[in-house]
């Protein structure tokens, strides 16, 4: 069975890392789907309940997935840029503040400045605004990149400074006042009920994307064959193409399955000059515009990473900066370009974030730098440099947002949400390290045993926790997992558990 699966994966030629991440995402989704069901039906067998819960859950509804896709967009866009930054062994802590500043500038421009010259509601307003936002983003990014590359100040310091400076500057733009309401066309970029493709365009995009994916698979195969390399079996190519098509069309179908509420639909129909039939009107959301932006960014960034010299030099520099330099790569200029690109993507993210809210407040983008870095890292980007993928960062952003939305849906307290997200971040990196080394270190196993025991102590009862500790002791003894040191650690853990039990009486006795 294992061998069969391994051979299948090898034949299909898909990255096991990608599979792992998709698996993790699915796990999170199914978990929330399971716990967000409607009240369970009495008198049915347990297995039926599991099935019913998975069917009835609210998490994987078109509505929630639509919201999830829109909520992820801004962080996902920035995370793709952060991959390049981290791959070259840098970091950018300033993106959240930059997003806020750019949002403020764009808001002021479209609300207070441009209408003076063009008149309120002029169709060019949103274009000029976005262009200006991009310009500011690129300028700030390039400046920070120059400080890092040419003046050799560590990126951590430069962008820590930027984190404070740009947040302060954002306040300065309007003296802290919220800018609202934003230009109606600009707001479409944030993906409200109106900022979507609708049914027809969504299907069209799905078909075009599917065809493009198939064409890519085909040309890649043809190029390989032209050089006489071994290619995958035909059935594997077809299966892969089929899966990709299914995913794309499935996503389009889901988004189309989410209807716009009646009243909003009527408003939109009127605005578009459509006739409204007597029995009412039903419009579909379809794919949200910010999601289309994310897809475009993902394609462009993947393309840069894989098919351009710029991308190749980013990875080479991350792998060995000296070697890159000796190969004639201008690593300083490269750094400027990478940070400028990060700035441009931050501007795009700022457009999405401010348009989604319809207003720019002083706190726009707060903590985003941490979400973005976490998304890139959960997506397998190594802080030691040289390793990281664009798709990984996007899936990482999705995992983060799924956790947050899911927990909010279940009603988990905000502090506990933070704890869970933080733990997932650390765990993701641990798994990543283990998978790279093709071996799990004994300390990793011990760590998980201890964590399991502690979690059970806190959330179930200290007696069960103690039982797990004893089991852990048996396991570490049996496989000699850093024995006898582990015995000492587990003994201390047991004492702590008993102390917790005696002090708080949580479920013991």
């Amino acid at each position: 069975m294992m061998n069969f699966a391994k051979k299948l994966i090898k034949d299909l030629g898909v990255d096991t890392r990608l599979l792992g991440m998709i698996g993790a995402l699915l796990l999170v989704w199914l978990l929330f789907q399971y716990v967000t069901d409607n009240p369970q039906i009495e008198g049915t067998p347990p297995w039926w309940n599991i099935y019913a819960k998975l069917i009835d859950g609210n998490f994987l509804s078109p509505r929630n997935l639509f919201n999830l896709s829109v909520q992820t967009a801004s962080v996902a866009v920035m995370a793709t840029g952060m991959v390049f930054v981290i791959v070259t062994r840098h970091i950018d802590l300033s993106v959240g503040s930059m997003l806020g500043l750019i949002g403020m500038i764009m808001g002021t421009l479209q609300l207070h400045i441009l209408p003076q010259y063009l008149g309120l509601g002029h169709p060019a307003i949103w274009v000029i605004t976005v262009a200006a936002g991009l310009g500011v983003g690129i300028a700030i990014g390039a400046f920070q990149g120059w400080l890092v590359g040419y003046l050799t100040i560590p990126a951590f310091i430069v962008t820590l400074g930027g984190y404070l400076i740009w947040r302060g500057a954002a306040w300065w733009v309007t003296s802290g006042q919220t800018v609202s309401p934003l230009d109606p066309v600009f707001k479409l970029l944030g993906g409200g009920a109106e900022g979507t493709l609708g049914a027809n365009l969504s299907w069209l995009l799905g078909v075009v994307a599917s065809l493009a994916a198939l064409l890519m698979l085909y040309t890649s195969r043809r190029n390989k064959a032209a050089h006489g390399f071994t290619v995958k079996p035909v059935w594997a190519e077809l299966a892969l193409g089929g899966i990709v098509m299914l995913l794309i069309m499935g996503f389009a179908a889901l988004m189309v399955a989410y209807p716009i509420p009646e009243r909003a639909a009527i408003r939109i129909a009127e605005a578009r000059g459509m006739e409204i039939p007597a029995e009412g009107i039903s419009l579909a959301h379809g794919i949200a515009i910010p999601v289309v932006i994310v897809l475009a960014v993902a394609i462009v960034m993947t393309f840069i990473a894989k098919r351009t010299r710029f991308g190749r030099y980013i990875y080479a520099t991350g792998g060995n900066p000296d070697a890159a330099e000796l190969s004639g790569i201008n690593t300083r200029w490269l750094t400027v370009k990478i940070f400028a690109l990060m700035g441009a993507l931050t501007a795009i993210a700022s457009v999405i974030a401010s348009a989604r809210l319809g207003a720019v407040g002083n706190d726009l983008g707060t903590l985003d730098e941490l979400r973005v870095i976490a998304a890139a890292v959960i997506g397998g980007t190594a802080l030691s440099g040289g390793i990281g993928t664009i798709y990984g960062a996007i899936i990482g952003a999705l995992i983060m947002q799924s956790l947050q939305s899911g927990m909010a849906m279940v009603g988990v307290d905000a502090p506990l949400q933070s704890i869970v997200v933080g733990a997932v971040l650390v765990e993701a990196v641990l798994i990543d390290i283990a998978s790279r080394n093709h071996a799990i270190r004994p300390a990793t196993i011990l760590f998980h045993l201890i964590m399991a025991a502690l979690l059970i102590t806190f959330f179930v009862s200290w007696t069960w926790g103690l039982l797990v500790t004893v089991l852990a002791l048996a396991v570490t003894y049996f496989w000699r997992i850093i024995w006898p040191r582990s015995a000492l650690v587990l003994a201390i853990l047991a004492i702590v558990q008993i102390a917790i039990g005696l002090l708080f009486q949580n479920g013991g006795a």
Partner: protein
Amino acid sequence: MSTPLVEMRDIQISFGGIKAVDHVSVDLYPGEVVGLLGHNGAGKSTLIKCLSGAYKADAGEIYVNGEKATINNPRDARSYHIETIYQTLALADNLDAASNLFLGRELVNKFGLVDDDAMEAETRKIMGRLNPNFQKFSAPVSALSGGQRQSVAIARAVYFNAKILIMDEPTAALGPHETQMVAELIDQLKSEGIGIFLIDHDVHQVKALCDRAAVMKNGELVGVVKVDEVTEDDILAMIILGKKPEHLT
């Protein structure tokens, strides 16, 4: 004699007070192999790094084919057809052999896009010549053995039709068979008229492969000798005592 391929005159470079290379002059003729010897830290790598563009000399001049050359960075050196195998190999560990071989000089298709398939095909060809056992074309070079990594670095220097080749301990990690193949490669390149600077600690090998040997000690040049006119012991004496053999002075 004809004009030298390379002439390094009075090269000086110091790192914070330490004179790593102190008034050293060496030259190299087409089809010649010049061995560079010296104790650890003598300044051999630093000297050749001035030629390969990794360092910029504090003082001194470099002439290529009799004309003064300005070498400020590795790209300049490459434009003079100077290729280098660095002692540290200078490989990006996270990339595969082909990406490393073509690093900085990627093959592109008609749209200017990196053409990985073409590069892999070329890499297969040259590796087939240098190290026929090599098969790991899609693995990152971090997954290669020391010797395999070294053959990737050698392939990179040889592939681009160098006129001047710098080899900084190219056989340090190689097995006997692979070392033999590098020796044959040096002979072959030599017959094609390429000039080679070979840094090597193995005096026996230097005597077998090189035409002349330049010995350095503490950043200074002890002397340059024709290997036919000296014994291995003479060379060893130069390295250890820092003195030219008496019959030549």
